[in-house]
């Protein structure tokens, strides 16, 4: 298990380096002078030249990349030239908002998805199964921004149950502010998870230990919820791990539509203003999140199911 974990995290590190390097090269390939955008129209040529040198933008791209990784090894993500604040501070100030949003959406999608999937599997090929299948597909097909806007209009404007914008203050208020945005981005995953759990459960329900449990006269509800569901939700762990990247990208629009702070919005704002230090800091952290969550999902699976270790 230890060797497997080391190998898995080594791969994650390699993915991280490749992704960050590609992003570094891509952001420099797009047209637009960051110094001009940062300083605005009335900055003096001297100031522009100084900032260009400060950001090492007068150096060849390969040298800029070496400087970036050199600073990174010293734990320095640089300074935001707009505000003069540390990029590390800025990124880590926004990160918790995004993590909460993703966690909330995972809870929504896992809860509804597992529930729907389990219910459908317990009633295979019935009307209920078909209805849950239709609901699942609808959820997958519903664009997240449409769900976001509709939920805003219904639950924030009309019913006034939940807040429309912001992230709130204090634990309960933050939770309250989390409901609609996490629902909006979590809903499309409900369908995937429901279909996955249904298929997985139907497979598990046919296995010998389920038959044995039934033969011992154990209540059917207990058979489904305890014996079958526990094993059937294993693939969901993998899906959630891999889905982290999608959830991160969904968080971008949720942060814009719900005017929430967060990493996604920070990245978008920074790219449009060519704020290189912030872009690289945010990309590094979000890519890191993605590869770590994927690796963790693999490790959890390997831990739960030892066959996965040997398979790899």
């Amino acid at each position, binding site marked *: 298990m230890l060797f497997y974990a080391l190998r898995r995290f080594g791969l994650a590190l390699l993915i991280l380096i490749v992704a960050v390097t590609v992003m570094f090269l891509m952001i420099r390939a797009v*047209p*637009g002078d960051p110094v001009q*955008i940062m300083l605005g129209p009335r*900055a003096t040529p001297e100031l522009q030249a100084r900032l260009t040198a400060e950001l090492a933008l007068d150096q060849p791209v390969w040298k800029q990349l070496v400087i970036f990784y050199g600073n990174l090894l010293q734990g320095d993500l640089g300074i935001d030239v707009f505000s003069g604040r540390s990029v590390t501070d800025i990124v880590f100030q926004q990160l918790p908002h995004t993590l909460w949003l993703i966690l909330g959406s995972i809870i929504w999608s896992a*809860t509804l998805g597992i529930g729907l999937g389990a219910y459908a599997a317990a009633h295979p090929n019935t009307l209920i199964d078909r209805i849950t299948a239709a609901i699942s597909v609808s959820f997958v097909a519903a664009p997240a921004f449409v769900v976001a806007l509709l939920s805003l209009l219904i639950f924030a404007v009309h019913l*006034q149950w939940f807040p429309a*914008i912001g*992230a709130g203050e204090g634990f309960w208020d933050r939770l309250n502010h989390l409901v609609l945005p996490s629902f909006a981005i979590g809903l499309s995953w409900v369908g995937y998870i429901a279909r996955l759990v249904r298929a997985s459960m139907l497979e598990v329900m046919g296995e010998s230990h389920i038959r044995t449990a039934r033969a011992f006269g154990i209540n059917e509800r207990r058979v489904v919820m305890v014996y079958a569901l526990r094993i059937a939700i294993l693939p969901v762990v993998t899906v959630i791990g891999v889905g982290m990247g999608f959830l991160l990208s969904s968080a971008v629009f949720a942060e814009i539509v719900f005017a929430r702070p967060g990493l996604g919005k920070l990245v978008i704002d920074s790219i*449009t203003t060519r704020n290189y230090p912030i872009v690289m800091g945010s990309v590094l952290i979000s890519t890191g999140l993605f590869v770590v969550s994927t690796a963790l999902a693999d490790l959890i699976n390997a831990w739960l199911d030892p066959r996965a270790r040997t398979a790899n």
Partner: protein
Amino acid sequence: MKIEWTKAPVGRRNFLKGATALGAAAALPMGLGSRAMAAEGGTLRVRSYGDLQSIDPAFSKGVIDEEIHASIYNKLIQYKPGREWDWQMDAAAMIEQGDETHIKFALRDDIGFTNGFGAMTAEDVKFSFERIVADETESPNKPDMGPLSHVEVTGEREGTIVLKEPFAPLWSIALPYITGNIVSKKAWEAAGGKATTDPLAESGPYLRDSWSPKEKTVLKRNPDWKGEAPAWDTIEILPIDDENTAEIAFEAGELDFTRVSLGSVQRYRDGVPNGGTLLEYPSLYYTWLGMNLDHPKLQNKKLRQAIQHAIDVPSVLEAAYFGAVDPSTGIIAPGLAGNRPQSLVPPQADFAKAAELLADSGETNVTLKLDTLNKTTFTTAAQVIQATLAQIGITVEVNVLESGAFWASADNEDLQLVLNRYSMTPDPYYATSWFTTEQVGHWNWERFSNEEYDQIHTSASQLTDQAKRAEMYQRAQDLMEESGAYRFLTHEATPVVHSAGVVPALRPDGLALLRYFGKA
């Protein structure tokens, strides 16, 4: 110190139990708690279209920062809320123009800085103004101070602003806007001359209580403020860049004041939710179609004039701005000296004349590229222009660019047609400054170069005779239009909505002067 790891008692069986329990727990209803509503408990909640960048007036990025600066600092004079551009006293107890280059002032004796930095003195005014123009500060806002020479301190609270030459925008930009904010000399020196996002010392009716980046700036009443008491205990400024989101937040009762999209104006004219009110203000922005005079395809003046006459401005405005704005006559907005009553080329297209001009030009099979920002308003406007130019046989390819690439167009030699929009401060000097010969390759994308225009830009800012100034700026816009490089479109508009409990205080262009906001 030795760290000892304790093995967590989580086996596979326990993990699975826990995971199932977590899923069940998540199914419980949550988030049904009460919401914080706007205008409750003396809190005013307003929307800003961006987040704070700098607390230092020398490095302020414009309106977003200034909304906060104007509340926590003082100026000698501030803009007066209303429909006409005017100013009123702020930190100044007296201010008068001695001669064209000397302005005497006396400070009120009841304004002090926080954090123990003492009373506001003429030394603070001298420090604040002179650091803006000092080369070592490298302030991008330096041009706003124009030809400031220095400030003479003639008493503890008295002094004279000395200019190198007359500068009319002193009263419309330099003193009542960003560069006019007076900071504490002692505080700035104690901090090594730099402030980023945390105030060093404040003096206004409000103090910045907290700032959560990308989330909220909270202003609280300054308990030591001796001037007229501000109406609100707390002001929360929420950075929301999307107008539709802001409108939803307003309708949900979470905002008291916001600018709304032009597309929503008609809906709000029919009624504003929650007993609110729609206010429509003109804007200082100016939008135009520019033609690069240096591009080989646009050398022929008759062709450029044909393009001018073929663009139907009302159609562009109807499609792109939902008919909620008026055509502009130039770069200087109504209400400012130099605004032209009408443009040389009427806003309505004259296709017959355009076709005639195109025939006279001798150009055939004209194909041009039109660069524009990737905003719906501009892409729509570009498509209408594309359609109208097609009527006289000119083919236009619309090239949509994201903001970073678009704003790097200054050195784009292949730039042909461009749909552009600049903002400005309330003085014609600001608008004309971007179209001088000196700005070719920087912000003068049309590469328009005219000696008379350059002369007007330089000399009109030194005139105190507003009528003469207006005449000169009108001539400057005639010259722009006569070059054939410009088709002026609109100054846009600033529609805002406010809730029933709020009495907004706005500049004539609809921007908020938060310190003067009242309660209904």
